[in-house]
């Protein structure tokens, strides 16, 4: 491995590690929690930490926001941070909110259909439905399904 665990190295990578921790918190909410609204919130946390990871790669030490002076006379000594990650993340934020909106609309429909938004209860109801349908099909075929 071509790296040493110096203080500079640790500080320079702390941002990636913190964002990874945040990302994993979001993933934990999505995987472990049964409530659908909470899953969506977890997904948002996951998503925002990905955004932070991207934006942090665009930062240059001593740099400033990539906006020129109004008279467009750019001082070559001023360091500007990389604008490309910002653009990509702007797009991603808007796409993220539209997926969130779609997910929440699905949750509202699930609530209307099953009268619950807990994953465990939905699975139980679906199991009951499948059993009932199997029983009906089994009867019509003259035996057990």
């Amino acid at each position, binding site marked *: 491995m071509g790296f040493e665990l110096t203080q500079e190295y640790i500080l320079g990578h*702390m941002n*990636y590690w913190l964002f990874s921790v945040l990302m994993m918190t979001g993933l934990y909410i999505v995987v472990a929690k049964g409530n659908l609204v909470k899953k969506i919130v977890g997904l948002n946390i996951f998503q925002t930490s990905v955004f932070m990871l991207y934006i942090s790669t665009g930062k240059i030490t001593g740099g400033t926001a990539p906006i020129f002076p109004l008279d467009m006379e750019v001082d070559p000594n001023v360091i500007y941070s990389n604008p*490309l990650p910002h653009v990509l993340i702007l797009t991603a934020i808007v796409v993220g909110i539209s997926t969130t909106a779609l997910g929440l609309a699905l949750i509202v429909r699930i609530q209307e259909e099953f009268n619950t938004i807990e994953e465990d209860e939905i699975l139980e109801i679906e199991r009951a439905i499948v059993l009932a349908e199997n029983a009906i099909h089994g009867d019509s075929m003259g035996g057990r399904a």
Partner: protein
Amino acid sequence: MLILTAIAVVRMHSLFAVAMLSGVFSLLSALLFVTLDAVDVAFTEAAVGAGISTVLVLGTLALTSRFEKPTKRSPIIPLFVVFVTGAALIYGTLDMPNFGSPDAPAQTHVGPDYLERSVEEIDIPNVVTAILASYRGYDTLGETAVVFTAGIGVLLLISGFSRRRRRDDDDDEESEET
């Protein structure tokens, strides 16, 4: 701060508080974006993440339930999955360039190119706007297409198109039975 908020979201059972905390989370991340020089991203995140998505979540809560029921499943398998994934991610960052280093690969390819050329080619002070609307205009077009599709999806789901159709079907069945 961000991590504390996220952990509070994990522990909280009142969904109302979860919605508010996700707004707080978005606002804190907007502050972080400002310190990382991404002011455009910061105000988009503050408006969209802390504003619109909180409103959407609250609207969903008004139509569904306020509280989360405790789950019966054990958290061991999800924790295992999360730790393995996190370890893999951190292993992947080990040979990344240091934070803020000016000679990182991300800083040496097209980024400075945009900064130099947008002065004469686009002549807009805000480079992010110049790239968003001009160099990567197709991305933005695709983005609007996604938003449009999502809008149609939400409208179809909420407006009860399928519900009405099912009710019609029920009526048909009833009339056949009688």
